[in-house]
């Protein structure tokens, strides 16, 4: 890690110089659309040499996961230092070097629940973009009731024999490993018999089938486990206490979804949509809604920042994170309705001049369903934050 972190201004100057030297010009194009993301993984095809170069140089310096400890591949930044890093990236419109479920979800879980050996084993490959992870939570028919896990792991001494089925597994067909909730004690109460297991998607008995969405894309899969052997050391936390890990992770997921993954730009601006469509905001109702969305977007973004500040200050955000997920996803849907309206008839075409606007619009409809529905978030708030009765 090449930076002097003793004071923020020094750090800022050093990061700025480092970026000038190391961030390829192509990676400073301000592109935050889904297509520009570097996910990494065994089968990853880099879109350009610059994308690979940018990933590698960041990974070498702990900057793909700047807040993780240096020994696990991070830069050991605290919250304020991370802000400096992100604001300097913003300043030059740089892309993030790497995004992944490993960074957003498994990493935080391992850092909290994993053993030192597990951290050393699993985290560095994530920071280098070598292993791409997916999340196996939802099961068919379970919907919002995540704890009703039916996929079961039979204890076979040195391994569990896993059978069952997951659904809504994001990018399971592209992932290398999975972290999954598996019922390891079928006699225990619903939340008590679940374990949090890790295994290779190339294990014998694992298969996936993409689900085609209304947007035409297939970011989710059905995932099938047929006599999959999972060694006993591939568990995070304690046997049958996987729900604790899952709950911890759900909190993280909410923050991630609300912040669009990276907490940075949402990839599309009203100004761009209007410019592409040759349209403007002279009509009162469109203008009113555009400003209202702007107000909501700035407010939610500030709230994400405030909650992160609070968490960094040692005050856990806990169940209140449900609010970020709720407000962020509802806003995203509203914003894309606005975009569609601003785009007019051009936006009604799959491959019109405004690009993938309708696909993105349809994709946002899942935001308030995946990772816990808006209804579940509101129930969490009302019961756990406000203390309203059962």
């Amino acid at each position: 890690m090449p930076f002097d972190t003793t004071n923020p201004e020094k750090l800022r100057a050093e990061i700025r110089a480092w970026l000038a030297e190391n961030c390829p010009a192509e990676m400073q194009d301000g592109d935050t659309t889904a297509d520009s993301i570097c996910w990494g993984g065994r089968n990853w095809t880099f879109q350009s040499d610059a994308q690979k170069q940018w990933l590698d140089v960041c990974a070498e310096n702990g900057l793909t996961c700047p807040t993780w400890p240096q020994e696990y591949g991070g830069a050991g930044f605290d919250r304020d230092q991370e802000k400096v890093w992100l604001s300097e990236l913003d300043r030059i419109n740089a892309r993030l070097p790497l995004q992944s479920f490993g960074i957003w979800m498994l990493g935080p879980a391992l850092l909290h629940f994993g053993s030192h050996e597990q951290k050393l084993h699993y985290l560095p490959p994530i920071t280098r973009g070598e292993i791409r992870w997916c999340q196996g939570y939802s099961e068919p028919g379970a919907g919002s009731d995540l704890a009703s896990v039916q996929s079961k792991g039979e204890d076979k001494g040195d391994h569990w024999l896993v059978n069952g089925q997951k659904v809504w597994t994001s990018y399971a067909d592209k992932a290398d490993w999975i972290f999954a909730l598996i019922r390891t004690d079928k006699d225990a109460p619903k939340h008590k018999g679940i374990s949090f297991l890790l295994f290779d998607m190339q294990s014998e008995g694992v298969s996936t089938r993409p689900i085609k969405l209304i947007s035409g894309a297939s970011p989710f899969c059905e995932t099938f486990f047929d006599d999959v052997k999972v060694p006993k050391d591939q568990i995070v936390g304690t046997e049958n206490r996987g729900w604790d890990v899952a709950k911890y992770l759900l909190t993280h997921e909410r923050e991630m979804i609300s912040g669009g993954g990276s907490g940075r730009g949402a990839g599309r601006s009203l100004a761009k949509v209007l410019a592409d469509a040759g349209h403007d905001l002279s009509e009162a109702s469109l203008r009113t809604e555009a400003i209202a969305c702007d107000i909501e977007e700035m407010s939610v973004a500030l709230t994400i920042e405030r909650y992160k500040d609070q968490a960094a200050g040692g005050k856990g955000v806990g169940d209140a994170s449900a609010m970020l997920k709720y407000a962020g996803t509802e806003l995203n849907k509203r914003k894309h309705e606005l975009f569609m309206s601003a785009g007019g008839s051009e936006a009604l075409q799959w491959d019109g001049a405004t690009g993938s606007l309708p696909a993105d619009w349809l994709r946002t409809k899942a935001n308030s369903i995946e990772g816990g529905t808006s209804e579940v978030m509101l129930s969490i708030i009302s019961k756990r934050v406000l203390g309203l009765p059962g």
Partner: protein
Amino acid sequence: MTNLTLTEDETMLVDSARGFLDEASPVGKFRELRDAGKAYNPALWKQMADLGWTGVLVPEDQGGIDMGHSAANLLAQEMGKTLVSSPFISTAVMAATALRQVADNPRAAEALGKIASGDLTYALALDEGVKHAPHNTQMQAERVGNGFSLSGEKTFVVDGGSADRLLVLARTGDDDGALTLFDIPADRDGITRTAQNMIDARDSAQISFDGVEATGEDVVGSVDQAMSVLNPALRAGQAALAAEMTGLSSGAFGMTVSYLQERKQFGVLIGQFQALQHRAAHLWSDIEVTTSTIANAGRMMDEDPDNAALAVSLAKAKACQTAKLAVMEGVQMHGGIGMTDAFDMGFFMKRARVAQEWLGDYGYHAEQIAKIKGY
């Protein structure tokens, strides 16, 4: 004040339409068309002609059943419930209404007859920008000798890829209102039609006109007077589209209520969750209220067409809001399954979005209302 409930004739029409469409064109048929890359089913169109639907607004002299706009709206509403894709609104509602303004013209009379018999389809080539704005037409119809030469680009021409003929709006003078409506075959020299890949999988085209010749015969009504013919047609189309959207809302809502009654989560039927109950009840209220505006638009167009603009814009504005809510709640309450292409709800959402834009969205009609009210 007129009666806003259905007459006996209308009730019979609705019942028979529903019976026919449930058999001949449930949502599954739309899926088949979509999967086959087809925008509509000509055989179904022929059946609709046999039932008299394509002639619902055609005078009896020209072979129509001439039941009026209320009836046309009811048919559109029933079609909306199961997402029936056809050129009904373009041809049987809008073109028929435009042509019947000049029905004493033999060519128009003949065309009306062919619309009624199902032998002729039309599309209206009006808009040039991304938003509905017929008054902003820039496309030129230059006078050449006794005729005209049309050059320019039209977009979002619904049913424009398959229509036999086009009603084309073009500028014949510099004054704001100096617009003329031409009725020309869609394959005339100089016309290039490019299919638009619409999210609702229906027919829409970008159409370019490159020195397309038109004669005085091709003018519908009088030169520079397009709006006297087009305005009634637009209103008829807007009302019928609003009706279709209300049917669509009912269709999506019906699926949603059924799901609430059968889907279990956390051990109980999700229809027992009061938050969902109240949202469903609110949506139902919206659909009921919208239905009243459709009924009113139909009655006004049939009984006092010169003063129907407010009623029509009200219906379309309200229908836009309600359809948007109906499909959003439909997807959300269905959860993950509502997001899959294998499930039908997405079709409702996509059609609702296109129908919102076509012939003026909420904002357009809100401003029409404001103008009429003098705001």
